[in-house]
């Protein structure tokens, strides 16, 4: 090695290796990386977009939100995320759920919460408007919703630049549930019976197990 090789970066690229002022010897490395980048950020996401959901809810299916809380999604809607009760095919058996149908997304997030449903709704509004969606705003006063199983929650409509919807909050067995349903206004209105049914189906399995 000599001093000249140390300074090679300052020198002009030898003419036989030059293309548009660039050193052609660097091309294989650079093009390999660009190829991987395009595959990762363009091709694979497009494949994901091109594949439709095809996991419809069958009659009798229930989704487990926690070890003791379940709900019954509308038959025919697609399960985009969530764990069916009783399948036992995975090490994880419960968690948040997303089902989609009739142009509406119905989402239930489950996590620990120590408080009342009204406090949970306040907390959700405070966090959502301060973080993910500054335009998130609940409309009017919350209404009480009582499920046939006797669990009491609160429900409210909300508006956001990302779309309008309804939001409900429950606290069952120490698990807070944030229920959101959103989509274009017409579809949301048309699907409101299904949304109401799904909210009403939320129940604890604790007593029945006991």
């Amino acid at each position, binding site marked *: 090695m000599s001093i000249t090789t140390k300074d090679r970066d300052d020198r002009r690229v030898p003419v036989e290796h030059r293309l548009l002022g660039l050193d052609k010897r660097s091309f294989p490395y650079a093009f390999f990386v660009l190829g991987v980048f395009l595959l990762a950020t363009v091709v694979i996401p497009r494949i*994901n977009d091109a594949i439709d959901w095809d996991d419809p809810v069958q009659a009798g299916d229930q989704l487990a939100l926690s070890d003791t809380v379940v709900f019954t999604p509308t038959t025919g809607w697609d399960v985009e995320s969530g*764990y069916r009760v009783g399948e036992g095919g995975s090490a994880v058996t419960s968690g948040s759920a997303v089902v989609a149908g009739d142009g509406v997304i119905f989402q239930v997030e489950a996590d620990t919460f120590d408080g009342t449903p009204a406090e949970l709704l306040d907390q959700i509004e405070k966090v959502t408007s301060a*973080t993910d969606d500054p335009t998130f705003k609940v409309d009017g006063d919350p209404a009480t919703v009582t499920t046939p199983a006797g669990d009491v929650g609160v429900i409210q409509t909300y508006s956001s630049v990302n779309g309008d919807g309804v939001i409900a909050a429950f606290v069952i067995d120490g698990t807070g549930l944030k229920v959101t349903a959103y989509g274009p206004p017409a579809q949301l209105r048309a699907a409101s019976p299904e949304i109401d049914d799904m909210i009403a189906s939320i129940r604890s399995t604790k007593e029945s197990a006991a």
Partner: protein
Amino acid sequence: MSAVATAPDAGSDAVRRQREALEVSGWGERFVFFQPHNLCFWVYVALTGIGVFQAWSYFDPEIGFYAGGFAIAAVLCGLCGAAWFLWFRHIDRWERQPGGLVVAGLIWGAIPATFGFAMTVNTAMLGIYPKLFGQDWTADWAAGATAPFTEESAKLCGFILLMGLAPRLVRTANDGLVIGAFIGLGFAAFEDFLYAANSTGTAFGTDPIGNAVHMSATRIAVSFVSHPLFSALVCCGAIYLLGTAAQPRRVGRGIALILAGMFFHFTWDDAVGLGQGGAAVFLVMVLSTILGFTVLAIAFRAAGPREHQFVRDILAPEVEAGTLTAEEVDGVLDKKARKQFKKSAPNHKAKRACKHLRRAILDLTHDVADAGGADTDHVQHARAEVARLRAVAATAG
């Protein structure tokens, strides 16, 4: 031993060996990042820019609300990363990687690999799997069927760019292990922070600081098996697979190391699926840790002889001139000779002096390489240090 130094003949075999070793190894070469003629430079800058933009878009909405949680996560994950950084610098003993190269590796791992590549492609892959194989399969296997491909290739891309930016510096299997570890460290530190930052929103954002501390602690606790291990194996494999001026191509070994890095990533990510949620999860983690470090040790051992030969060749004129003895050089390189050397020291003080002497001989190697074989002030000082520490060792004995 008392060394009487005589200048080696410029045309001697020893000087020729040194010259060839410096040429092939690239030891002493400086790293220049700004290379406008090099397409790799522009690709690095562009993809880092995309990564910064994506990272900002991701964190910006939440950074104000969860500032406390984010700050504590950054401090904890930063400290963990710094500890690993110091350890990696410590074990980087042969051709010490230039600081600029290390920083370029760390930044690639932290920003473009995570936010430029992994976040987008992981989201897409985790969208494809449940559509094709259902939710239960996804819960057990999707992570391990995603990250070993997407994240390892994202980190490998940084290594490939550094090969294009510094072809003379990144060319031995040992370079692959060390630079791969630094790229992986950048990725791991930022990923740990990302997990901790995301955890601020759990439990509906009721305890952001507590959750950030808890998640940081969890990530730090398992950080000993992480991206640095996986990337070290993958990048070392890439060097064998591609072959360089200093490392003849070994396709089989290269593929084996790349697959090993991906496999350990898989077993780590899918430990829950492999163990089916029971105590077996812990067993899977312990086994993959033991196996992972065994393979890493084998890879380091296989990479050693090449570096040892460079040290011998670079120091050949010093041995010829009598500054060093061949036994002293062997004491630095050869594990058996080192043990014998250590055993022959009668007490703790002498053992310590021998250790310092070995370190001084390595310093001399680096100074000779930095000077390109010339006789500079630094080299003379390093020689004087060797002589001084040798005298200390002799007195201690």
